[in-house]
């Protein structure tokens, strides 16, 4: 990347044989002279990085619900009941990549409902962390086959699959009627931090937003990043929305506050998928909840209340 960097690869220079192209490169270089190069803000970057780490945000994608930290796929699957103590023993941990769901995601429907005459559903795809370069490369190929290129913006980090070693990924798919939007990506690092205590990550997604630009049923519509006390009001009167959130597996209840001050409590031990509840997604370190935003209000804030 630095100017003295060696980019020597086989195809390098072929296109650059074109004198015009070279000159355009010169013009671009000249245009960058307008940039004021100040001191590199090292301290600010470190502070920002630590904040991200604290929030378990390994990488935020398009409106990402980003969760870092995991105690491993099976440990999470076993973390039920809300006390976080039911963790599978290491002895039962599967060892083949297929068993661990490295090459095909585990899919869990974390919420569903009906709005405006159409059924909607939120599904989480969880890809387990590859353990070595071979697994990472094969997973990379599998992801490329699974998702349209335009949905990979936040997914395939780095051309070097080895970057993925030890990191699991999940995708959130919002389906309304026959249309789907792969909107959000999260990553979790095997063996490192995990969402805990009263940590919470929340996003909102417009159900009405699905559709434009669809060419193949896989839409590029995205989840909007929210926060636990988002001030970004969105019209609840004209747009059907859902709130999608993640919490620690120990969380028992989430209280969502709407723009008019009313609240909705989402509990873990609630029956029925159409009833908002906290539940685990297979392979994912944290628990999920999905709530339809009541008409006439918008999402205001959310917190783990129990």
């Amino acid at each position: 990347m630095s100017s003295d960097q060696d980019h020597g690869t086989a195809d390098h220079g072929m296109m650059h044989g074109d004198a015009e192209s070279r000159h355009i490169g010169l013009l671009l270089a000249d245009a960058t002279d307008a940039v004021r190069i100040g001191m590199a803000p090292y301290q600010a970057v470190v502070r920002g990085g630590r904040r991200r780490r604290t929030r378990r945000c390994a990488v935020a994608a398009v409106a990402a619900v980003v969760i870092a930290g995991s105690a491993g796929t099976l440990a999470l699957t076993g973390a039920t009941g809300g006390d976080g103590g039911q963790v599978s023993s290491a002895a039962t941990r599967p060892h083949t990549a297929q068993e661990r769901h490295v090459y095909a995601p585990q899919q869990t429907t974390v919420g569903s409902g009906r709005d405006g005459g159409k059924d909607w559903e939120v599904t989480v795809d969880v890809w387990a962390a590859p353990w070595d370069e071979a697994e990472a490369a094969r997973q990379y190929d599998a992801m490329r086959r699974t998702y349209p290129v335009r949905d990979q913006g936040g997914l395939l980090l780095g051309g070097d699959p080895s970057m993925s070693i030890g990191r699991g990924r999940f995708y959130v798919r919002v389906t309304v009627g026959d249309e789907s939007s792969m909107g959000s990506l999260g990553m979790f690092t095997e063996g490192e931090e995990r969402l805990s205590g009263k940590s919470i990550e929340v996003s909102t997604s417009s159900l009405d937003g699905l559709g434009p630009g669809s060419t193949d049923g896989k839409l590029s519509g995205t989840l909007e990043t929210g926060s636990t006390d988002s001030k970004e009001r969105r019209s609840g009167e004209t747009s059907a929305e859902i709130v999608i959130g993640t919490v620690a597996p120990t969380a028992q209840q989430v209280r969502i506050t709407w723009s008019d001050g009313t609240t909705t409590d989402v509990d873990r031990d609630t029956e029925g998928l159409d009833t908002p509840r906290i539940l685990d997604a297979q392979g994912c370190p944290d628990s999920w909840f999905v709530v339809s935003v009541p008409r006439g209000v918008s999402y205001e804030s959310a917190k783990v209340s129990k």
Partner: protein
Amino acid sequence: MGDRKQARDAEFQSFFIGRWPRLLRTAFLLTGEQHAAEDLVQTTFEQVYVAWRRVASAKDPDTYVRRVMINAHARRHRRRLKEFLAPRSDSPLVPEQPDGGDRMAQADDRGALLTALSQLPRRQREAVVLRYWEDLSETQTADAMGCSVGAVKSNAAKGIAKLRALPGLAETVTQGGWK
């Protein structure tokens, strides 16, 4: 443990400071605005900092950084965060006091180029910037953009064709750039 962390931090600091000027220029071409460029690079390195242990041990950390930056740029684009791609009257892109006719013409040309660049679709802009400013190979550009080499070729060719159509740019190009 503490020593190792300190060593990692020092390594990151050195890497960051070394890459800052170049990446800032790249980000400037992608966003068209000084502050947006600084913000993009800073966001990129915050993510790199979090993953530094992994990045540092990678074969080519720069590949990772470029990829993170392109992804961050794409996210901003998709979220429609306001990007001031075209130079404005109060933009630092236009020198306040050009010291002569040539400088004025040069600033105009730069502005025209940046405007044209800003009007390219995002993927074409990224392909052009990475190929012709970052001087990456098609393969490296494809890695950074998360697409095929063919897509890079296509996006770069279309982008360049549009830039060539810029009035005055073709002449400038054939004369070998601004003097």
